[in-house]
């Protein structure tokens, strides 16, 4: 099937070449980082994780979000998602790959990274994160590819795929839970030391991930003849709305615990994010932007009349993605380190090399996504004459 990726319109090839250029530029900067060391980043003794690990955190959420399609489709037989489900699985594949690449570019000694496998350490959450991320990648590769092949050959998918699908549903929760545990168990980091961390991670994943998927799907709908169906779009928008409400609610719970208890350690990171602490206000404008965009996006998503209109939905989703990205892809990691163990703040903002190296990883993810979606949509176009379902017709 992969040959389908080799034939495409000039626009398709233009996108591929553009992404390769981005990847090439980023790879050059990564080489620079490999020769100089992480000194090219703005990381420090105090803020030892930054943009790279924050992107890992955000895209684990995007990867996990495929479950918002898989779960209703397989557990509740919600057939409207049949055309989108493969897109969700392929988005998960490219997101999870980006996550692992972000860990690689963050390592000080990447040539030693197999030490995680040579010296397996069950007491380290990073070890388990590696297991669940790799597992999720392979699950989605196998399930997605096999289902697509079966669809192309007009057959039902082999029976052994079913248990893997059920496993992948549980697994999707595990990848984001384990990633939350990376942070949630550390005694010195008050912003992360909260039992609701994993739940917050899932809530924000289940709004931002499907929002990205829906935006990309609507883009594809515009550019090609592919149509996921109005019911699928409406339902996914509803799921996003609920998840975003839960996401905001969970954050408010954090505010209550921190400020009603009046405990300095719990308040300090939140004060740092929204007001500044120890004279450092680097993240304040970003966090208020996130807060305002989150409220606007909710105001546009909650009333069904607004949500179901195309342009309003797209706007709301874009605002939601920006808000959740600032919260998770910037604020969450840095606020874990600020204030530092000495109740002081060390500023952090990603440097140009950090951003360009990250764009290499984004580029690789986008390239994988483009190729995989191209294959999926071409197979659909080849097979389909009027059959709008991704599920092959039952043999007579």
């Amino acid at each position, binding site marked *: 099937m992969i040959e389908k990726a080799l034939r495409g319109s000039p626009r398709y090839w233009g996108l591929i070449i553009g992404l390769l250029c981005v990847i090439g530029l980023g790879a050059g900067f990564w080489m620079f980082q490999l020769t*100089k*060391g*992480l*000194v090219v*980043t703005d*990381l*420090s*003794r*105090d803020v*030892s*994780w930054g943009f790279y690990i924050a992107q890992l955190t955000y895209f684990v959420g995007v990867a996990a979000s495929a479950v918002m399609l898989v779960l209703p489709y397989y557990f509740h037989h919600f057939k409207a998602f049949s055309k989108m489900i493969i897109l969700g699985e392929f988005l998960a594949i490219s997101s999870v790959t980006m996550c692992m690449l972000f*860990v690689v570019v*963050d*390592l*000080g*000694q*990447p040539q*030693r*990274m197999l*030490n*995680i496998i*040579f*010296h397996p*350490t069950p*007491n*380290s*959450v*990073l*070890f388990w994160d*590696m297991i669940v991320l790799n597992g999720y990648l392979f699950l989605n590769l196998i399930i997605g590819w096999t289902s697509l092949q079966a669809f192309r050959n007009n057959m039902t998918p082999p029976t052994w795929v079913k248990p893997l699908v059920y496993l992948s549903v549980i697994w999707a929760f595990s990848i984001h839970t384990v990633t939350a545990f*990376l*942070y949630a168990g*550390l*005694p*010195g*980091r008050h912003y992360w030391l909260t039992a609701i961390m994993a739940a917050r991670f899932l809530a924000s994943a289940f709004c931002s991930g499907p929002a990205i998927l829906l935006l990309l799907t609507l883009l594809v709908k515009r550019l090609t003849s592919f149509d996921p169906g109005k019911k699928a779009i409406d339902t996914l928008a509803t799921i996003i709305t609920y998840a975003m409400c839960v996401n905001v609610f969970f954050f408010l719970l954090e505010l209550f615990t921190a400020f009603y208890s009046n405990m*300095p*350690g719990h308040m300090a990171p939140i004060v740092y994010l929204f007001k500044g602490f120890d004279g450092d206000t680097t993240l304040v404008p970003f966090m208020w932007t996130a807060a305002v965009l989150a409220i606007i996006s909710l105001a546009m998503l909650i009333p069904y009349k607004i949500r179901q209109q195309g342009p309003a939905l797209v706007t709301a989703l874009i605002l939601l993605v920006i808000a959740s990205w600032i919260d998770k892809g910037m604020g969450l990691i840095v606020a*874990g*380190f600020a204030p*530092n*163990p*000495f*109740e*002081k703040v*060390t500023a952090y903002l990603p440097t140009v090399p950090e951003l360009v190296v990250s764009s290499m990883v984004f580029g690789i993810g986008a390239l994988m996504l483009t190729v995989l979606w191209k294959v999926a949509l071409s197979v659909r176009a080849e097979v389909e004459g009027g059959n709008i379902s991704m599920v092959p017709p039952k043999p007579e």
Partner: protein
Amino acid sequence: MKSSRRKFLKLAAVSALGLGAGRIGFLGDAPAGAMDIPTAADYNAPREAKHWGMAIDTTRFNQELVDTCATACHTQHNVPTIPGKKGIKWFWGANFEESFPTEHGHNLPEDVEHRTYPLLCNQCEEPMCVRVCPTQATFKRADGIVMMDFHRCIGCRYCMAGCPFGARSFNFQDPRPFIKNFNPLFPTRTRGVVEKCNFCAELLALGKMPACVEASGGALIFGDLEDPESDIRKVLRERFALRRKPDAGTGPSVYYLM
């Protein structure tokens, strides 16, 4: 060509001299107290303990004594001097508020407020850094010392996120150009690995005391916390002592006598 041959001959000469390497000029200025390269016999009488610990007589510390101890430590371990927020620290000083932020001391006695408190790795009983390390590059020995394997560390910096004391440093760049006094008896590090105080495990193996303890003139008391007759236990019985951030649950082996 010529210069590389000269370099080779120089190195060959040094290798032949072997024992004298520590004092050869082009390797850098060896620390004043540099000893000869130890032989197997020197390891016959190591200092041993069930649980190494340190008591710090804070009343005797000011910035000057902290600097003296820090220099001794940093010289012994080839700790580079890198200014700014990417610096490497094994032993350093801070005021009360920074050293004991969870105490939130207000209206402190003036002398307590104005001391400089020496900070170093707390060699915790339940070290978070060891728990989170994915490759066992940081590990705890039976005698309580938390060690780093610089060759196994992949530079993920999870231990830095885990440490509630900010006691770990990361080599963001090649540290070698920043080493002031080169000690040939202790390894230098590469970029991309984490490092920290090791309670001078390499000196204890030779039967010596840690470098900072030697330099402190008695202000640092080092010994076996499991031995009721040790100096450290005696002083802890007599004086009131604090441990940093007890609520983090890591059980520091470093005590601050107030």
